[in-house]
């Protein structure tokens, strides 16, 4: 089966991906951004969803739901506003869950 890739975030961060052929979705926290993201996750035709860290900070409840689901893969990426370290902390969370404590802590 052939699926698409979605990119969610503020428009400065995601328009570049549109040129590559990924589907951009502008996240609007004051409008219907939340329902849009929910629909996006339930839409089976997206198997990878990239979310900018800034948007992810507001969507963390939804993202948490899909951590243990086989699909879609929700991956955090830094946006134009800079790297908040949220992406790496998601990796850390996995380690903590599996090992019991963060053993890669520097």
């Amino acid at each position, binding site marked *: 089966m052939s699926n698409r890739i979605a990119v969610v975030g503020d428009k400065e961060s995601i*328009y570049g991906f549109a040129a590559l052929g990924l589907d951009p979705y502008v996240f609007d926290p004051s409008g219907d951004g939340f329902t849009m993201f929910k629909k996006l996750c339930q839409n089976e035709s997206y198997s990878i969803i990239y979310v900018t860290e800034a948007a992810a900070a507001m969507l963390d409840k939804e993202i948490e739901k899909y951590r243990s689901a086989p699909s879609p893969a929700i*991956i955090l990426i830094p946006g134009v506003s800079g790297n908040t370290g949220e992406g790496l902390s998601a990796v850390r969370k996995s380690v903590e869950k*599996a090992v019991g404590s963060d053993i890669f802590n520097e």
Partner: protein
Amino acid sequence: MAVKQVNPTRMELTRLKKKLNTATRGHKLLKDKRDELMRRFLEMVRENRALRMKVEESLREANLNFVLAKTAMSDEAMKAALLAPKQEVYVSTSYRNVMSVDIPVFDTKTRTPDPNDIYSYGFAFTSADLDGAVKSLSDILPDLIKLAEIEKSCQLMADEIEKTRRRVNALEHVMIPETREQIRYITRKLDENERSTQTRLMKVKDMMLQQAHGY
């Protein structure tokens, strides 16, 4: 430990012994599974971290290029240039089984084979920086896909490890000791019954001898 009420019968004893056997074997197997999962997980998580740092660094550079390109172009021109893409990326997902965890393997296909189709605009009206920005982003794409694959795998494996660990602990600290305790209780009870039958028989024998021979 509070022992659950069990019938002190031979049948129950055999059943419990079988149960203990299965539990011990299951415990050993699950423990092995947990250890192997952990080994693979740690390997993968190391790769995940390295890849993520690399991707984040190159994304930062790509974003910088975009900001640069934006300074030379109007917002409308930028939108017009990028929002009607020529290229499309399809991803097909297959699953690989690692220690009973189905981890995804993403395989990407583009709609057209031409790598220049990422430039969805005419070169006349856009700044040259935009070309560089789009190119740098397109160079990261394979790494981004790989990151998605590994990171999702890590999440799924972490979940499975947690579940397996719980099962191992439940078997080791609850199920197995409890069954052992029950088996011991039944054995004692049966032994006690045996002894009481023995004494009763001896007593009856004594009484019969007394009646028959007078001693």
